[in-house]
């Protein structure tokens, strides 16, 4: 993605010989850099609008707020470094946001694929705090047990469709699947979680009565 106008190097690149800064220039060009100050402003505006939704997506898909923090930062850093990332000025914020969600989805997938062993010290405090029933909101009480029974991919699809309001085609772009597959998978996932939510509602109502 070529920049639309005059391209100025970032401040640190002035300190490097051309050959050294060459790769960085390419990366900057990929991110649609026209002017560093403008880029910073545009990015800050984009970040302020997209960071919270992205964090919500990561936190709900992974059920781990600390992991969501890490992956969110990593997603933005990769977005800024990616040579093929959509330019905010040229391609628009919607395309940039889709690209960002795609990076986050891939990072989550990589995280789930990675074999890991966790000690008790590594588990974040929020994990234990969240398990306290008294501090949970109604949505958490009903949705979280149901989400926990869903597969990671189903959680991601459901969140993108029903929380972010993305179309099948947009979800397909984010998840790297075909739109037809998304339609079927989403239908199944929605059926499954609806049944679970109804069960939770019934159990919750019974619990309140008793």
């Amino acid at each position: 993605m070529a920049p639309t106008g005059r391209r100025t190097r970032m401040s640190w690149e002035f300190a490097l010989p051309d050959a050294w800064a060459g790769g960085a220039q390419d990366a900057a060009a990929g991110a649609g850099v026209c002017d560093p100050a403008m880029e910073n402003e545009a990015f800050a505006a984009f970040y302020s609008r997209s960071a919270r939704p992205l964090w919500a997506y990561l936190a709900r898909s992974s059920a781990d707020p600390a992991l969501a923090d890490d992956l969110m930062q990593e997603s933005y850093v990769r977005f800024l470094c990616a040579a093929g990332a959509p330019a905010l000025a040229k391609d628009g914020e919607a395309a940039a946001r889709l690209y960002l969600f795609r990076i986050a989805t891939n990072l989550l997938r990589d995280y789930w694929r990675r074999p890991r062993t966790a000690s008790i010290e590594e588990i974040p405090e929020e994990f234990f705090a969240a398990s306290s029933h008294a501090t949970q909101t109604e949505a958490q009480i009903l949705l979280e047990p149901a989400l926990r029974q869903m597969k990671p991919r189903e959680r991601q699809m459901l969140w993108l469709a029903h929380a972010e309001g993305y179309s099948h085609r947009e979800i397909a772009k984010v998840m790297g699947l075909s739109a037809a597959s998304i339609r079927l998978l989403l239908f199944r996932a929605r059926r499954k979680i609806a049944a679970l939510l109804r069960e939770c509602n019934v159990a919750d109502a019974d619990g309140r009565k008793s």
Partner: protein
Amino acid sequence: MNLTSCTYEKEVRQLMARGQWPDACPVELRAHVSGCRTCGDIVLVSGAFQQARVESLAAARPVAPAVLLWRAQLRRRNAAMERVARPLLGAQIFACAVALLAAVGFAGLEARNGVEWLTWSYWHDWFVQFPQAAAAQWDSLSSGSLAGSGLTWMVLVPTVATLVLLGGVVVYLATDKP
């Protein structure tokens, strides 16, 4: 499980997305949703997810964008430096390969004279006799009998060149940062 879609699905989805369900919804559509499983699922699931989204947005604590810009710049700089360092690594590998070839060649030449050179006593004698032999060689070279000592030059020049090359490689590897 059959993929059955409802004609009202899109409308229900739009109402949910705009937050107009159930207040701004026609009575007929509400009646339809209460009897349609697909639309009922959409209403139930979308309602739960949108509520969860509102809570999650409030819970998010994003870092300052400047931190991310700085981290991205740092990563791009490191990538650029890595790209520059790649040919240097190639040069190091090439120098090592040349040194190894020279060592193997030298060992091959010496092996022609038998395997005696592999013994300790051979090298002991060689070190003892080397100063005398070198002095004799130098005398013969300085006396101008170059024609007679052609073979000696053929051995001496590559040996010195190999030593210089090896020395350069050793110095470079010793001073190179990891």
